[in-house]
């Protein structure tokens, strides 16, 4: 008879790891390393992400005993990873953010869209029209070019699909500010995709 194995919950593993069970900590790492690496790439860069990954799990281990079960373990861990990424970035020479304002939509004097419907729709097809690898490289570049105040809320909410409340908490912002910045980041990135497919945004 096959006995189905029930995976322990994150919270159960965290409790065991906090009590000194290093196998439980190993399981936490296995469960989250891929997701944390992806987040780190999005918030920093491919070259910085390995350091952020190590720093995150070091911090998680250090603070396991202060995990209070008020939030889900995953949310708590993402918050630590976000901080690790932001600290890492701060330690680097600050790159002058290149504003993407030129990629915001254009309007005529009456407030109507200046572009044609076909032009306005085209960025939606960027993934069919462009080579996947080239698009991936340009997309990473575009996200890095966003001013940090827009980049972080956009990455956490739209790419990592965290709730507005969790993003606000992680970045110490008001929820309304998170929403405004996510919206503006989407507008800029939409224009960037438009430029990539050859249409002036």
């Amino acid at each position, binding site marked *: 008879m096959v006995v189905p194995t029930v995976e322990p919950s994150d919270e159960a593993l965290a409790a065991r790891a906090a009590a000194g069970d290093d196998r439980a900590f190993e399981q936490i*790492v296995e469960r989250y390393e891929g997701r944390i690496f992806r987040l780190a790439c999005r918030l920093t860069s491919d070259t910085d992400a390995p350091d952020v990954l190590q720093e995150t799990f070091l911090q998680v281990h250090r603070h396991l005993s202060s995990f209070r079960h008020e939030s889900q373990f995953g949310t708590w861990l993402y918050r630590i990873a976000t901080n690790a990424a932001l600290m890492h970035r701060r330690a680097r020479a600050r790159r002058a953010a290149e504003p993407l304002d030129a990629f915001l939509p254009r*309007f005529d004097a009456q407030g109507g869209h200046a572009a044609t419907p*076909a032009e*306005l729709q085209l960025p*939606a097809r960027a993934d069919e029209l462009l080579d996947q690898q080239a698009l991936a490289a340009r*997309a990473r570049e575009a996200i890095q070019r966003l001013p940090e105040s827009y980049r972080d809320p956009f990455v956490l909410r739209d790419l990592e699909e965290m709730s507005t409340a969790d993003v606000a908490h992680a970045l110490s912002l008001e929820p309304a500010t998170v929403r405004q910045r996510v919206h503006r980041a*989407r*507008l800029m*990135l939409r224009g960037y995709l438009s430029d990539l497919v050859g249409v002036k945004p």
Partner: protein
Amino acid sequence: MSEIACVSGVDLLMDYLEGALAADVRAALDAHVAGCERCVAFIESYRATPRILKQVTAASLPADVQQSLRTFLRSQGLVPPGDW
């Protein structure tokens, strides 16, 4: 709120798509979008933007990075010695 221009629609778009607008504003925008091909097209590409960026930036963990993480955590005594 009777007449809406595309530019206001763009300002309100996130709230519009997430159902966060007051009913009268929503109705005015619905009416505008119903008669505006440009806004329909714009909304399509606005919605596609996070989807496309999410898909193309979904990095997977390279084996060497995974190995370095494990070596590091072992060196710190945070995980058991031996094969992982």
